[in-house]
C-alpha cells in the first residue's frame, strides 16, 4: 500500500517537474513587452506547480495527502494555461 503511494508520489512529482521545465523554457521566449499577461499567467502556473510539488513531497503518508488540494491545484494550472492562450489571441 505504502509502496503504491510512493510510486504515485514519484509519478505525479515527475509530471510537475516536466511541466515546470516546459513552462520555464517557453517563458524564456515570451515577448516581455507585448505578451506581459501571458508571461504573468505562466509565471503564476510555475509557482502553483512548485507549490503542489512541495505539497506532494511533504505528505509522506497516504492519509496525510488531501486529494482535494491536488485537484484544486491542477484545475488552477489548467485555468492559468488556458487563460494564457486566451489572452495571447
Amino acid at each position, binding site marked *: 500500500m505504502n509502496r503504491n503511494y510512493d510510486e504515485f508520489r*514519484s509519478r505525479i*512529482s515527475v509530471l510537475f517537474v516536466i511541466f515546470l521545465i516546459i513552462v520555464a523554457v517557453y517563458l524564456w521566449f515570451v515577448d*516581455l*513587452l507585448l505578451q*506581459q*499577461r*501571458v*508571461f*504573468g*499567467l505562466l*509565471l*503564476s*502556473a*510555475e*509557482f*502553483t506547480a*512548485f*507549490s503542489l510539488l*512541495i*505539497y506532494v*513531497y*511533504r*505528505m509522506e*503518508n497516504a*492519509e*496525510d495527502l*488531501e486529494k482535494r488540494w491536488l485537484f484544486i491545484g491542477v484545475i*488552477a494550472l489548467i485555468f*492559468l494555461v488556458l*487563460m494564457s492562450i486566451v*489572452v495571447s489571441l
Partner: protein
Amino acid sequence: MGEKRNVYDKMVDFFDVHFGFEKTPLKPIPVFALNPTYWLGLLLALTFIMQGVTGAFQLLYYVPSSTNTTLGLNAYTSTTNVIDNVPLGSFIETMHLYTAYAMVLLTFLHLMRNYFGSTHKERRELMWVAGIVLMLIIFSFATTGYSLPWTVISKSATDVAIGFLNVVPGQLGVFVRFLLTGTGEPDDLLRRFTIIHTVVLPGLLALFLGLKIYMYEVHGPSFTPAFSRLKANAQKYLHWFPQIFLYGTMIMSAYIAILVAASSLFPISLPPEYSAQAASQYAVQPDWYLLWVYQILKFQIFAGTGEPFALGLVGVFFLLLMLLPFYDRSSRRGISSRPFFITIGAILVTEFVALTIWGYLTPGQVIPTLQAVAVMGGVAVATIAIMQIIYGQRKESKSNATNNAASEPLDKREPISPSGNLRAEAFGLGRNSKLTISFVLLLIVAASGLAYAINSLSSVGEMFPGFLLSVSAFACSMALMTWIVKRVVVSYESQGGTNA
C-alpha cells in the same frame, strides 16, 4: 544507516550540508501551527520583499515632479511610460499595486486573528505594540505610494493623508507638516513623499519587522486554548528545516501565484492626471483602505472645523488599540470567555466594513448627522444583539451539558483531532474555513444592503423595489451570520476551547 534515500531527501541533504540549516538556532514549531492563519506574518514579510523588488524597478523610471522635466516626463507620464513602453512594465506596476493591497489586507487579517485569538497576552504585549506600529507604517506606505503617480485619485488620497497631520497640535504640528509636505507645492510634496516612501518608511518597516520576528523567535507561535487537549501528535514539535521551511515555501509559492495571476488577469489602468479641471469632473475619493476614515470625515457634524476633532478621535482609537494588552489584563483567552472584548471587536469589524462600503457608494456626499447616527448606531446595536443571542445560547447549552455530564472529569474527555494526521491536527480553523469565508461575504452583503437602504431612505417611493431588496438582503445576511457565528462558537466549545 542502510535506509534508502530518494532524490528529494538527497536534495534536502545537499542544501543542509551546504547552508548548515540544521545548525541554525531557529526554534522548532509545534505541528498545530501548520495552518496558514499562523503564517500571515510570514506572508506580510514576503509581501514587503516583493514591494521592495517591484518598487526598485519602478524607481529606475519614476520622475518625482508634477511638471514636465528636461526629459519631457513628469510623475504621471513617467508612470504611464513604464506601463506602455517598458518590458514587463505594466505587469510590475500592477504587481506593486496589488502587493500593496495584499499588505494592507494581510495586516487587517493578522490584527483580527491576534485580537480574537488573544495572542497579545502573556509576554506578547510588546509584539502587539510593534504590530500596531507596523500597521501604521504600512498605512503610511500605502498612502504615500498611492500619491506618487499624481492622478486625480492619488491627489485626493494625499489630501486625506495631509489632513491627518492637522491633528498634531501646536508648533510640533507646524514642524511635522513642514517636514512631510514642505511648502505644499506639488513638486516639493512629490519629492518628499518619494523619499519617505522609498527610504524612510522601508527603513522603519524593516526595523520593526526585524524586532517582531526576533520576538516571535523568542516566544514561538501562540498556543491555542485547547493545546493541552490536543493529541500527542499535534503537540509534537517540528524542526524548522526541512519541515517548516518546506511548509513556508509551499504557502509562499501559492501566495505569489495568486498575486501574479491577479496582476496578469486584471492589469491596472491609471485614472486621469491631476489637474484642477480633471478633479472637478471626477468623483474623487481615496483608496479602499482609507474609505472608512474618509466616510467619517464626510459626516456633517465633522464638516469644516470639526475635521481635526474627527481625526483626533481616529488617533485616539489607534492609541487605545495599541495599548490593548495593558488594559485587557485577564488571563482568559477563549472566545466564549471574553464576551466584552469579542463584542467590541465584532462591532469594530462591522463598522469598518459598513463605513468602507458606504463610503464607496457615496463619493463626495455630505452625510447628514441623523443618518450617520442611524447607520453607526444601527450597526453597533445589531452586532451587540447578535453577540448577546450567541452568548446567551452558548450559556444555555453549556449549562445543559454540565447537567448531563456533571460527573465527567476533564481529563476523561475525548482528545480532539481524532484522525491523528497532520491536516486534522492543525486545530479548528481549517474545519471552519468555509464558514469564515461565507461570514465575510455575508458581512459585505449586509453592509452593502444597509448602506443602500439608508441612502434610498429619502426617496423610498421611487426606489421601493431596490429599498425592499436591500433591506431583505441585510436581514437575511444578518440571520445567516448569526447562525454561522453560533456554529463556530459551538464547534469551538465542543473542542474544549472554553478557557485558557
